[in-house]
């Protein structure tokens, strides 16, 4: 992300690396939280550190299962690039909600490496790690997507 002209161009709003780094386990491995007191599971991870159920502050990491089923899906039909993410070929993305065996629904997420015509509700999918976009400082951001489990 260099420019031919050295005068700095300030981006108004740039996240520090710290928020991306804090949430990386969730993006790479679907790590959420488990309350040590009431034993409930939480996705996304409880970054506030408080259990909504019993208000305990004791948590342990819980890696959710990397396999699930398609709960809902649709073709990306959003007409404008609303995000600075500039996802190319966006009209070919398959946006989906994936339900894991713990009952958690990962939504929104993407199905990759398959055609819209082969996606069915209840189809088994597994987690893959793909590149999302650049983070604000130029590093690459990686995260989960889902691909059909093919026998």
């Amino acid at each position: 992300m260099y420019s031919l002209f050295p005068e700095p161009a300030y981006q108004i709003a740039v996240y520090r690396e710290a928020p991306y780094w804090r949430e990386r386990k969730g993006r790479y491995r679907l790590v959420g939280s488990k309350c040590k007191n009431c034993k409930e599971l939480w996705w996304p991870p409880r970054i506030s550190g408080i259990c909504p159920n019993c208000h305990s502050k004791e948590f342990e990491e819980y890696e959710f299962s990397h396999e699930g089923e398609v709960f809902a899906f649709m073709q990306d039909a959003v007409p404008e690039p609303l995000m600075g993410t500039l996802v190319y070929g966006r009209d070919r993305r398959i946006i989906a909600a994936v339900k894991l065996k713990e009952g958690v629904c990962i939504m929104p997420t993407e199905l990759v490496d398959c055609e819209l015509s082969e996606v069915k509700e209840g189809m088994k999918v597994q987690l893959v790690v793909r590149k999302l976009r650049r983070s604000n400082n130029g590093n690459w951001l990686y995260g989960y997507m889902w691909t059909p489990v093919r026998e």
Partner: protein
Amino acid sequence: MVRKVAIVGFGSMDNSPEARRKDDLRSWRYKIAEAGHDILASVDKGMDPKDIQYIVTNYHGEATVEGGSPAEIVDALGMVPTGHSLITDQCTGSGTSFHDAWALVASGQYDRVLHIGWDSRYDLLNRADKRCLQSNVDYDYHLGFDHFHTTDMANYFNYKYYGKRQVLEATLQNVILRYWYANRNPKAGLYGVPCPIKKEEMLALLDKDEKEFLRRLPRGLATDGASGVVMVPAEDARKYTDTPVYVEGVAQKNTPNYPGWPMHYPLKEYDWMKVTNTPPDKFDFLCSPALWLSTKEAMKRAKIEPKDIDIAEPPFPDIFMFIEAMGICPRHGAAKFIIDGETAIDGRLPMCTHGGADGFGKASGADWSNGLVEAVIQLRGQAGERQAPKAEVCICQGVGGVGGMGAMSATAVLRRG
């Protein structure tokens, strides 16, 4: 001891196509000032800006990220040194600020409170920066999704639970009504814009070529917005106007902003399926418990039943849950309710009579308050061609959130004075 509160003035900025031609010439400060003074000017027996004792507004984050906007807004309104609370609550923000403004008067501490909901789209900040600056973006915005993805996903479930044909017919009816209402509302964004589709033609197309049908459906309008009301204790209402509108009940509820949350959020006290009156095989993450909870609580505080409600002013008639949460039609019966014409001006429940957010202009921070202002106009009988024949009780609803489908919701019940 909670005082009864009355609305004695209302107003909004002009969203009509004519006025919007000057949009880029005007900053957000101009727009909020325009609304503020429109509100005060509407008070029949007059209210001076100096009489306002407190201001509550809301926005979506435009202007500054570090705060400091309250000071600028008070200055923009010319109401220095009045106290001001600035709230951000996404698309239901003006409902939340209304709730707080109401509570200030109801508590007895203040006698004249100004409420304005406003939003300026990307005047200072660009869209990408604003989205990325959301606090709750870890597993949605950062992954390259927008709340439109979630709201579009609503169709997936609507087709399943209501039947695709019904949903599309209801959508068509909503579009027709949108233009009908907006063309009778001089301040609406689509005022003077004729409806680009014809009902019979589209119904015929629905049988033959669904893709073309969807392609031809006009999308809603997004604009800036600023609208609000001024509130006084009910005992003072007649000092300002002969047609006050009483605030019967207000409620606001907040739930997590992660779109998939209702599927797994185990709290001892709540069963989300029961809260949303949904059978397990029809439960999905778009059921918006917040909307159900806030509607129920507002109706309880107002001590009304579904049969008492005459008009509804949510921002979108396409979100079927607004009607169902009130209990006016059976669960999963809203599509039929709309197709049967019950939301038209001569139906059981005229809805979105200002054109809806799609017809008036979607400006998320002002969505709820645009509905509120329309509710006040209807209850005072000043709606002209779009006046609902029976206008005793009106309900204003809204939802907001990253999911767009109701992480937060505010509801208010108003009654004619």
